């Protein structure tokens, strides 16, 4: 089985299998079991692809969708995407394994599988046109998750923001793939349109208002699955970084830095746990964006690492909030809810994943943020200090949430029949995620090396394009 096509087919087939099964009248718990099994298989298969050098060097090129001589990779597995595949698979597994039973339905499972399929295929292409089509599909999937009457307002907010983003992206890509635009003002306009589209999609200030709204009043589960993989970051790496001018990158990096501090600061004072998650996501996502736009190998590698650590850590943290909500209802952060003694594993997982988001030593986030600060400070000295402030505020926000959600006198009834502890499937998923975040933090060399290789490749492509001009 050394053919990359077979592995790719397998990776795509697993979520497709769940989508297919969800069209039949299968019992929801059975469908969940199938989704969990598929998720585990997908993580393992994606890991094989990531760890096997022959499988990492595969591409199908075409010149049908671009003016670039020699064409572009319609489908490819390279150093960058090979690590993103297990990342996308892990997010899907996390989602299907810990979704509370009360919130589980066939259409939801179908949507999660479809969203994963779209994320996975996005990570496998460098074609702007294909990315656009996948982006349209993923926004539609997200909107369909907000279709119920209770979320009409949020659906409209998302439709306006992400619709505008998709439209800008479409116009930008259309201009970019037009013949004869290379090195003209049209290419610059196209790039700016794509940049704004990416900024909206990633919730960068001032295009961010939809993020806290959809986290707070929308549906948190679909919001996590839509946002945590950070397809906007992938758009940036593939379409923006290789082509953008230094001024453009500097503008993006400064906006992203401002967002990182803004999001972390506002997460610290929120009353609603969901809204705090929204701002935390904004902050983390912006840190990734800042790293990607630094044109320093080290900062870019740091950004790529923070992408993984913040994605997994944040998704885990938000999932902990959902699991807790399933036991307690909506969570506000203005009082202490207690319950550590009845849910110690959930509390430990929440803390560990929150600390991974803040870049605490011993977690993968620490290495990522160190590299980010290290590399970025040479390019934009102010950036290093902004990352420090954002990290300090994020740490405070996470600890405030932890104290509020798990400490204090328990407001839960003490009836012995009320089971609050995690179910085995939830417990093992959270433990595995925590072990992954800490394990990769304690032994980060292979992943760090791979991210350095990826950033070398990305900046190599940029160098080629710049010298070609």
């Amino acid at each position, binding site marked *: 089985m050394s053919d990359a096509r077979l592995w790719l087919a397998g990776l795509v087939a697993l979520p497709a299998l769940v989508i297919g099964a969800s069209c039949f009248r299968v019992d929801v718990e059975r469908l969940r079991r199938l989704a969990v099994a598929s998720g585990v298989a997908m993580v393992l298969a994606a890991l094989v692809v990531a760890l096997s050098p022959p499988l990492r060097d595969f591409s199908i090129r075409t010149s049908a969708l671009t003016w670039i001589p020699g064409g572009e990779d319609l489908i490819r597995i390279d150093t960058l995407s090979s690590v993103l595949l297990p990342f996308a698979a892990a997010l899907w597994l996390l989602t299907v394994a810990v979704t*509370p039973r009360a*919130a589980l*339905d066939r259409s*939801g499972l179908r949507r999660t599988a479809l969203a994963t399929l779209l994320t996975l295929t996005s990570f496998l292409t460098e074609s702007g046109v294909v990315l656009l089509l996948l982006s349209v599909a993923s926004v539609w999937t997200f909107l369909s998750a907000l279709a*119920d*009457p*209770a*979320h009409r*307002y949020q659906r*409209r*907010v998302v439709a*306006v923001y992400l619709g505008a983003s998709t439209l800008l992206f479409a116009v930008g890509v259309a201009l970019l793939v037009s013949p004869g635009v290379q090195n003209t003002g049209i290419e610059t306009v196209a790039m700016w349109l794509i940049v704004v589209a990416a900024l909206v999609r990633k919730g960068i200030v*001032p295009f961010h*208002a939809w993020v*806290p*709204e959809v986290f707070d009043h929308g*549906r*948190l589960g679909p919001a996590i699955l839509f946002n945590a993989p950070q397809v906007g970051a992938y758009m940036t790496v593939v379409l923006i970084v290789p082509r953008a001018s230094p001024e453009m990158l500097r503008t993006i990096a400064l906006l992203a830095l401002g967002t990182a501090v*803004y999001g972390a*600061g*506002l997460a610290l*004072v*929120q009353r609603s746990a969901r*809204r705090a998650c929204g701002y935390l996501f904004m902050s983390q996502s912006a840190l990734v964006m800042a790293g990607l736009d630094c044109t320093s190998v080290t900062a870019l590698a740091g950004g790529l690492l923070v992408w993984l650590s913040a994605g997994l850590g944040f998704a885990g943290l938000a999932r902990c909030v*959902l699991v807790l*909500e399933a036991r307690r209802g909506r969570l506000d952060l203005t009082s*202490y809810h207690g319950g550590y*003694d009845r849910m*110690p*594993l959930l509390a430990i997982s929440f803390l560990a994943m929150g*600390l991974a988001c803040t870049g*605490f*030593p*011993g977690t993968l986030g*620490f290495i990522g943020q*160190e590299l980010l*600060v*290290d*590399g970025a*400070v*040479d390019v934009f000295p102010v950036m290093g200090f902004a990352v*420090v*402030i954002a*990290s*300090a*505020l994020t*740490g*405070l926000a996470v*600890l405030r949430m932890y*104290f509020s959600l*798990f*400490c*204090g*006198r328990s407001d839960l009834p003490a009836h012995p029949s009320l089971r609050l502890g995690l179910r085995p499937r939830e417990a093992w998923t959270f*433990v595995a995620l*925590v072990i992954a975040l800490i394990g990769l933090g304690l032994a*980060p*060399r292979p992943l*760090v090396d791979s991210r*350095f290789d990826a950033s070398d490749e990305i900046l190599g492509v940029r160098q080629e394009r710049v010298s070609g001009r």
Partner: protein
Amino acid sequence: MTLDMPSIPLTLLVLVGVGSPALLLALLGVASLVNRPLPERWTGPLAGSLMAIACAALGMAFVVYGMTETGPQLLSYGAWSASHEGGMAIEFLVDRLSLAFAALSTAIAGVVSAFSNRYLHREAGYNRYFVLFAVFVTGMLLVALAGNVAVLFIGWELVGLSSALLVAFFQERPASVSNAFRVVSVYRISDAAMLSAAVLLRHVAGTDSLSLLFGGAAPTVGLSATNATIIAILLVVAVAGKSALLPFSSWLPRAMEGPTPSSAVYYGSLSIHAGCFLLLRAAPLLEQASAARLLAGGLGAATALFAGMTARVQSDMKSSLAYASLTQVGIIVTEIAVGWYTLAFIHLAGHACFRLLQFLSAPNVLHDLHGLEDAIGDHASDRGHLRVVRSDRARRQLFLIALERGFLDRILDRVVVEPFTGLAGLLTRVDQWLCDAVLPTRLPAPVDGGNQDE
């Protein structure tokens, strides 16, 4: 400073010294994570044994180092992560100061471990306490032996986190938890200052090696006087936060919410002195930055006066001891700023041991005192508050300031917390307005809808 090649026994001894508490952390942490915490009958002896091993190893390392009479040595244990600029290395800087402080830390940790084993017997959070205690000891040793900024920062963060979580040890009490949040807020300022110093150091000098910086080689690594001063001032701010110097002193009495052994080891003996130790380490840098030195001396002296006064009017034993401890910390910082390094270290070591004993024996002393007061039917002693001040009016005002702990909490609230929360609240409303501006009417949720909130 000339760095000599490390001898193998020293490398091994230091590794065993640092590795023992890290092993304890790994064992207890993994067991807790899989929801199978070790029973008390294993945890206590395990913690005690590993602390004893660490203490013996670091004590032997101190002796070996003294016998070989070599200069400071940089022990390298490989690269933790790599980068094009060299990456993050696990390095320990070994000299008399670092080994003495590390050995002292493990000795104190061993005593506290044995005490805690009995003190927290059958306490619900027994296992959690020892996990956090292992985090703390590992962090302290990393701070003591750090050979580069990354290792120092890791230790600094571990000490901070474990401290905050131990303040919230009795987590069913809201006061403990809110006090822990206050503590961690100040610690984050300290951490940010420390990390900013590290970032600046890397940016201007291109190195994060503490052996160069703390060995007095700042000019040789291209550090100008201005940059050296800024880095030193950032370090003083970091130290002020960690050691509760003014204006950050208000977190110290709040930190007394934790169990007595943790109060003893953190705020009586080790954590509170971590800042002093860092200043001692950074003495060569301070000597090149007179503004930072002046700042440290001023903060130390002011803190000593303030804490000395405040300690006299506290109504509970632990707060009184905490402020007494802070008085000595202020004096130690002043000694370092003046340049009396040897005296400062002897003072630090002596005070750490003495205050540990006071904290640990405080519950028994109180118990005996209550028995004595019951027997004589009156208060056992009346020390008199601030009697050294002759004027009644001045004494009353000083008493009020001391009783209110310098109004530091209120000042911090007015100057930092309220403006910050006000601004953040305003920005949150602006964010909501940005949505409403796009869609003018917020649609009401239907009564029977919205069950799919997940």
